[in-house]
């Protein structure tokens, strides 16, 4: 029995190492997304179907977990490994597994921030290696820090599964149902935070109306996202050429006619 759980924990840690470490090692290929992590954990623990389905459900939950602008708050890979392990080893149902994934994702995010701070301590070694033109050391540091921080995730998942799955299963069962229901609700609203994060990067007062067009196209016209993307692309291209024409026109005018009348100035301001 105890051997089994140690083997299972090792496999969970391995999946985390492959997905999280592999994502960062190979061009941020998104292998750490739930839809990839879920099936791998399912395969390793001998229940592929559960892994695939939970992975797809958690993908929707964590779609807003955007790792941009230095903001890390949720780690989808840790959440997925632990949720799938809980469903397969701990015998939890999928609803409880999804509810569990949210706090686990938060803890995983904390761990990630912790590693970023911890491995910042190597900056002196990096500077020193560059200062001495020690390329070998630069390469060692590059891959060494990757390995070390991926290993941290392996160990964290391993330990959590060894000590955690059974007590967590018992704990989740003891929770009042409104908490589980509330966490399920959170799953539906989490994407809002992620989209808000992305919105803060693209929002511009004059352009904000486009956001509502996209909303209406899906909410009322029921278009799939791919179609919305293509419509968006068409508008973006049309307006880009239009803007380019205006820009060129404006500049050819300023070149030839430097002291123009106030009315012309006004007209240009209107166009821009």
């Amino acid at each position, binding site marked *: 029995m105890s051997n089994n759980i140690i083997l299972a924990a090792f496999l969970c840690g391995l999946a985390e190492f492959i997905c999280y470490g592999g994502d960062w090692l190979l061009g941020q290929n998104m292998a750490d997304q739930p839809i990839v992590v879920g099936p791998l954990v399912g395969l390793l623990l001998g229940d592929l179907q559960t892994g695939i389905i939970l992975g797809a459900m958690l993908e929707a939950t964590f779609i807003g977990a955007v790792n941009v602008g230095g903001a890390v708050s949720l780690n989808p890979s840790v959440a997925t490994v632990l949720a799938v392990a809980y469903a397969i080893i701990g015998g939890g149902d999928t609803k409880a597994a999804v509810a569990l994934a949210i706090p686990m994702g938060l803890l995983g995010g904390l761990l990630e921030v912790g590693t970023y701070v911890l491995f910042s301590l190597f*900056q002196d070694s990096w500077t020193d290696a*560059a200062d001495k033109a020690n390329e070998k050391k630069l390469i060692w540091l590059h891959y060494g820090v990757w390995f070390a921080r991926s290993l941290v995730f392996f160990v964290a998942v391993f330990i959590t599964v060894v000590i955690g799955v059974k007590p967590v299963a018992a704990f989740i069962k003891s929770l009042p149902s409104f908490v589980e229901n509330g966490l399920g609700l959170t799953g539906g609203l989490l994407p809002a935070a992620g989209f808000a994060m*992305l919105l803060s990067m693209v929002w511009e007062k004059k352009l904000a109306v486009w956001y509502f067009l996209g909303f209406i196209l899906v909410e009322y016209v029921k278009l*799939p996202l791919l179609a919305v993307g293509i419509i968006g692309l068409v508008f973006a291209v049309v*307006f880009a050429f239009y803007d380019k024409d205006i820009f060129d026109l404006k500049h050819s005018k300023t070149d030839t006619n430097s002291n123009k009348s106030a009315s012309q100035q006004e007209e240009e301001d209107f166009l821009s």
Partner: protein
Amino acid sequence: MTQESATNNKISPTDKKLLRKLYLRSLTIGAPLQYANEYGSGFEYSLLPFIDHYYKNGSEEKRQALKRHIVFYNITQYVGTFCQGLVASMEKQASQHKDYDVSSISAVKASLMGPMSGIGDTLFWGILRVIAAGVAMTFGMQGNILAPFVFLLIYNIPAQWCRWEMTKLGFSVGSEYITEMYSSGLLTIFTKAARTLGLIMLGGMTSSLVQFKTKLVFHVGGGQVINVQNILDSLLKGLVPLLITLGCYWLIAKKHINFTVVILGLIIFCILLSALGIA
């Protein structure tokens, strides 16, 4: 486009080989991610083939070049290779002309970080990832093993192709092009187009992926029931998800509330709603 085909011819076979190395190494740019230099280590590592080839071993110039790049750097990696290719071409020139102003290299890097990340994160993290996930999720919900493969292919074929095209483009345009890009208004126009596309997609994603329904019903006299969700739907479908998303945006962008705090707030808010029987 004519720009690209005209300049492509200028890349010599040696440089092409070096660019291929830069491309492959740039795949690991985020491997040792931490807060001190973020992608700085990866930037240095990707550039090593160029520095080794163009600077004399043991020279002071080479040491300075190595020191120049082990500093903070972060651009969304699928488009950041534009900056890496550009810097490679600048380092090549710096190695050949003694009077080259090397401070311009760091200046170009710094000027590209903000705008390129804004566009890159929106296009890749925001749009491509969500489209790939959307397609793959329909497979996954049915328990189809194709889900992860579909997801990885839809995401990575455009992303890693873009990485390579940007590597070549950055190397061939030259640093004068950056000034030209700003003065010709091209960057502003491109940023505006990317924002337009991003906003439309985010609107669509808000509708399709942010979920909220209230269970609240009022029993009024005479056995009549008022279903709050129906009333909300008749005002505007998806009103609550829309307001919550805009509310989060307001907190993050205008009130500068930490992302993690917003998420914790959402969890508490939902458990509260659940406890009160609202949802």
